[in-house]
Structure formats: structure tokens, C-alpha cells
């Protein structure tokens, strides 16, 4: 796997400046995009396409906190992916189940405001988890065994993300 941090030329850390990432992506695209090589020989065009894909993919990974965390962990040799990670705590599972039930109720009532309020609460929670994860990444040595402490929070983020995706689908359904 190609290292997305290296592709965009940034330090491998969790706290990255989103504006800096966007700027690097833009500047690299300016240099590599297939439009730049439209008149070039075929081999060069293929090369530009592959490089541009790498740059876009790296940007996609790094701007998303879940994928960025996964990339950092993989880099350090910590296995990621839901099958490799520790099981979520029963508390989290219970809480998410309750929230989902509330979301389902709001959907049945066609209560758009309630759906939005639920999503907003989870977004607040997401911000907290991200901040905490940022602190953990910053504090821990980039050592595989120590980095593994962020895994439970990564798991939680996945649950929150799935909830938010569902809420946004319901929001769309209700407002159309």
C-alpha cells in the first residue's frame, strides 16, 4: 500500500491542518492531473493517470479522520478493520441501539427536527472523540503496542459515522 502521508508530503500524524492538505492536493493536482499530459505520449499519460489517482486517494484518506487513523495504525503495524479490532464495549452498543431506536421513531413520525437534533448530538460526540483521539495519537509513542490504545475510540467513531450516514439518508428522505 502506498503511504498517503508520503504521497501528499506531510508528516505522519493525526492532527493535520485541513487547509494545508487541500493546498497540497491542489498543487499536486496542478502538476500531475491528466489534463496536463493530454498531448503527451501514451506512456506518460498512463503515468500521470496513476499518479493523479494516488494523489486523489491519499487526499481522500487523509481528510477523513477514520481513514487517517487507519493509515497511521497500519503504518505502525497495528492491524485495523473491524474483524481485527477489539469488540466494542457493551455500554457503547447499548447506547447506540437506543439512539437508533429514537432515530427510527423520529423517521416514522416524519419528525425532521428530531432527526436533525439527534444527528447534531452525535456530531458533538464525534467532535469530542476526535479531540480525544488526537490527544492519544500525539501523546503515545508511535509504537505499535502503545498506539493500539486508540482502537476503542476508532471503533466508536465508526459507530457514530454509521449513525450519521443513516440520519442523513433519513433527512434526505423526509425533506424530499
Amino acid at each position: 500500500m502506498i503511504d498517503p502521508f508520503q504521497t501528499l508530503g506531510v508528516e505522519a500524524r493525526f492532527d493535520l491542518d485541513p487547509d494545508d492538505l487541500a493546498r497540497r492536493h491542489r498543487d499536486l493536482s496542478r502538476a500531475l492531473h491528466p489534463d496536463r499530459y493530454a498531448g503527451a505520449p501514451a506512456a506518460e499519460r498512463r503515468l500521470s493517470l496513476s499518479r493523479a489517482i494516488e494523489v486523489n486517494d491519499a487526499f481522500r484518506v487523509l481528510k477523513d479522520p477514520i481513514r487517517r487513523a487507519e493509515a497511521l495504525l497500519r503504518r505502525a503495524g497495528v492491524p485495523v478493520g473491524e474483524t481485527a479490532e477489539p469488540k466494542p464495549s457493551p455500554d457503547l452498543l447499548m447506547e447506540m441501539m437506543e439512539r437508533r431506536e429514537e432515530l427510527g421513531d423520529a423517521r416514522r413520525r416524519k419528525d425532521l427536527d428530531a432527526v436533525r437534533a439527534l444527528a447534531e448530538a452525535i456530531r458533538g460526540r464525534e467532535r469530542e472523540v476526535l479531540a480525544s483521539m488526537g490527544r492519544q495519537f500525539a501523546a503515545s509513542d508511535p509504537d505499535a503496542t502503545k498506539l493500539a490504545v486508540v482502537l476503542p475510540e476508532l471503533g466508536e467513531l465508526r459507530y457514530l459515522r454509521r449513525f450519521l450516514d443513516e440520519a442523513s439518508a433519513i433527512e434526505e428522505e423526509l425533506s424530499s
Partner: protein
Amino acid sequence: MALLEIFDPKAAPRPIGIDLGTTNSLVARVRDGKPVVITDCNAEKLVPSVVHYDPRGRVIVGVDAQRLAVDFPRETIVSVKRFMGRGADDPETRRLGTYEFVEPKTPEEAKSVRFKIRDRSVTPVEVSAEVLKVLRSLAEDELRSVGGVVITVPAYFDDAQRQATKDAGKLAGLDVLRLLNEPTAAALAYGLEKQKNGLFAVYDLGGGTFDVTILLLDDGVFQVRSTGGDSALGGDDMDRALAERLLHDLGVPVENRPRELVRLALDTARKIKHGLTETDRVEAEIEVTGGTRKLAVTRAEFDALIKPIVERTGVACRRALRDAGVSADELDGVILVGGSTRVPYVRQYVEKLFGKPPLCDLDPEEVVALGAAIQADILAGTKERADEILLLDVLPLSLGLETMGGVVEKILPRNTTIPAGARQTFTTYADNQTGFDLHIVQGERELAIDCRSLARFVLKGIPPMPAGLARLEVTFRVDADGLLSVTANELTTGVEQKVEVKPSYGLTDEEVETMLMAALDHGEEDLEKRQLIEARVEAERVVLATKKALVADADLLEGDEERARIDEALAGLEEAIRGTRAAIIRGRTEVLDDVTHGWAGRRMDRAIARAIAGKDVTAIEGTVAKARGVEAHLAEHAGHNAPDGDASGTGS
């Protein structure tokens, strides 16, 4: 049709941009640094996208075809764009219309709509190619020789619709440099005109398609944040809604509507719609059996009829804003594109939706073609300062694979910046399974049957082993045209076997080639001429690019030897271009390709280094510091770095 008469070896081929619209099409080019629409001998800019097939097998396109539409409703194809890349069972074939369709005999045939015209069967690709040929000859009248072409497509077009459009270009004898999304083209024309940075929404309501695109214009880079729309929603639907009412008022029973009358009602509806942009009430006359009937429609009545249609655009707009992560009040402007945005009710609706009056100082019907011309000019490398302008577009609809239970696993989500790629690993689910079915779909729905099916293929020859052991790697790649190619690999045995599939919408490459042959009067002879022209255009482009690079990056050549090899290959190719053998030109283009390969890689590395280094001193210092940090980090933990061993991961 003799291509060599048109092709003037002394005239330099010039790039053009084409807006292949549902209702009208236009061709534009850049003259003295400014994009202009090319007009015909009557100073007309718009070519109606109407194609008539006459009894003698001749094809009539444009205004003349439009005149024949009422008398020959089956033989005159209007709004063919709505059928591009669509299957024979598409709902579009059942809407109010005047065509006859060929019943498909095989599943393969069912992949594409076919019009039944007299005793012929004609695909939408062929019909569109006729429109493109007319635009090409319009451009050739003015430019003598046409080089690369950029054709615009609705941003919301799926892979099949894009592939069909590209094939239509090929069939019309055009060298298609790029498919460009219509809203992005419009933004390009606007952005360059206004020299403004900021966040914009492009609201593009055409004859048959609706697109909304949210994009950020930042120092010459047009970065699409999100796009949404409906590739079967437009002014046509307003015409149909009004035509339904007219037919009802005339007392025509739904089950017995003569095609001629349907066409007449649709045309009258369109005229009334146009009239209502200026006045509040329009009267019209319709010839029916037993005399002329007078009808009147007020703007309020029309507004009420089209309300549900226009409101459908609001759903797509809200979703695009949400996908872009912005709210309407963060937008710096809303750009109106497409003829249907002339309808007053649409303008009012857009203003209410986005909370600001839309920009419409460029002609909404021309702006897409102008943008296409600018992009063609940039791609052809003729534009000065072309280096500073870049369009970064996105995938409009998610791409995925059907998995167990008919559920779609998304591989590339919508609004991913293109070009894009992703890799996914799968495993077998039964013991000793030797084949693996792959079904590639596009769309947002959860179940594969609700999405657009792009391609199916079987990866064969998996060695027998227990379930779950085989590892199959599927790679998706979407190029800058938004077109997908898929490769599959079986990794377990270490023997890589690749299957490469390009999704098809029903016409194979061979079929396109055959149509191309049939379209030319002298078959093979003309095909040779055409291949020669194509080979020359391509070779000249490569020569130009190589010479430019020799000036800019000569220092990256490894010694005089490499330089000598390149000079020799260049001279050889230039000599071949002066000759008349397509095969030799192709061969020598490849030779140049080979000898410049290593140097090209070094040039690209330099381009990356420059881009990463940033523009100002602090950024460079920052990068150096960070780079040191990375190095130190890597040195310290070199032992811990393990290769990616995650079999279920989605990384690439």
C-alpha cells in the same frame, strides 16, 4: 463524403468544444484568446438536436429536420440525448412521445434502445453522431481543419451515458480529447470571464437533464465539491406536462392519440412555454380534424403545471449542498445554465432556494459550449497560461459491486474526485469454488437491482480450495472522463490472472467500428484516410509536447546519449508525419514514447517536488522540518513497518 477534401494538410488542426444538448447543440472555439460560438451561414448559433431519416436513406439534421417532425413523428428523432446509454426497457421509452422502438430479441440487444425507423433500426449513438457530424462540418467550414474535441455531458450522466457519448464522437469522426461536465464547463467560462474566487453553485436545467454542482474556484483551480441531478428531468418534461393538458382540452382520448397530433401538441406546448417567458398569457392554434382549435394558457396555469417538476430540482440541490458540507448562505454566487432557466418560475424558485439572485450575465444557452472550447484549447496546449487552470471534477454516482444477497458494496462513493481508483479484496464463499461472478453497478440504492448495471463478468480458474481461502482483488479505475475500467486479480496462487472489463452499454467496439465503415461511402479506402488523419493529429500532439519538454526540462536528460535518442526518434516521427502511412506514424509515435519513458518519469517527479515544496519560504521551511521529522520517524521505527496485510481493507 470524402474526408481528404476537408482535411487540408497545411491548415493546423484546431481544438473545438461541443455542447451536445437535448434540444440544441453548439460548437465553439477560442479565437484570439476568447471563446466564441461558431455560427452557420445564416449566423445561427444553435443547431436543433433533431435528426430526420428520409425514405431515400438520407439524413437531415437541425432546423430542416425540425420542420419535418410533425409530419414524420416516427422518422424524426427529437431529444435523442434522453435515450443515450439507456436500455430497451428504460422508463424513458414509455413516456409521452412519438417513436417506435425495436423489440429486443436477445439480452445483449436489450442493453440499448433502438429506434424503429422505416425498416431500419437505429441506436441513439448513431442519431447523436449525425448531430455531431453537422457540428464538425460547421467548425471545418470556419477552421479548415478540426483537431481535438471536448464534448460536454451532464454531470449526472452515468458510465453508460458517458461511454455512449464518447462513441458517438468517434462515430462522427471526432478525436475526443475529453468528456467535460456541463456545469464545470459553464463555471470555467464564468470564472475566466469574472476572475473571481469563491464558492459557487451551478444550476443547469436543460431540455432533458438537470445538474447541480457546487464548486470552489481557487486560483485557477475549479474544484468540484459535489454534484447531483437527474438525467431525465428538463424542459421536455414541462412541454409534456403542458401537452398533456392541451390534448386533454382538445378532448383527445389517452388511448387513441395519433403520433402526429402528439408531436403537434408537444411543439405547441414548447412555443407557449417560450411565449410565457415574455408575457402572462399566450394563445395558440392547433389544427385538428374538423378545423382549427384555439387554446390559451396563462403563466399562472403554466407555473402550477411545472411546479412539481421544478421542485424535483430542489431535492437534488439540497443534497448537493449537504454533500459539499456547505449551506446556501456560504455560496458566493449561483450560476444559471441551460435554456430552461429562462422560465421565470425557475428563476424565482432558484432565488428562493439559494437565497440570492442568480447570475445570468452570460447567455445560459452558450456558456457550456464556451467552457468546452476553453478546455479544448487548454488540453491542446495552445492556450497561454494554460498551466494555471485546472478542472478537478468528481464521480457523480457511486460505483460498487453486488455482493451476497444482492446488496451493493460501494467501492467508490459519489463525489470522489476523479481520476480515482480503489481496490477491494474478496474471497470465495463455497468450497472448491473455481469461478467468481462480478457484477458492477452504479447508483446510490442499497440493492443491486435498483442500481444501474454496468457490467457482469466471471473470474475463472481459481484453484480449488476451502471457502474463504482464495483472495480475489478487484481494482476500479475512473479516468478524467469519468469512465470506469475494472481489473480483477486472483492472488492466492501467486499467478496473476487479469480480466479487464470496460462496462458496455450495448454496443461493442466492433459494432462501432462496423458502423463507422458503413457510414463511409468508400468503405476501407476512406477508413484508411481517416486513420491517417487520426494518426497525424496524435503524432503532432506528441511532437509538440516533446519539444516543449525539451526546452523546459533538458537538464533532466541523462547525458547526450538520451538526448540523441530522443532527437532521432523525433526526427523519424516528423518524417513519418509528412508521409502518408498511418502504420508508420503510429509505430514511430510508439518509438518516441519508448525513448522518452524514463525521462518522463523524472520530469513528473520534479513536478511533484515543485508542487510539494510550496510557494513561499515558510512553507518550504515547514516542509523541510516535516520531512526531517518523517525521516527521523522512519529511521527510528524502520523495524516496525509491516506491509499491509489487511485482507478486508478497502485501501488501494
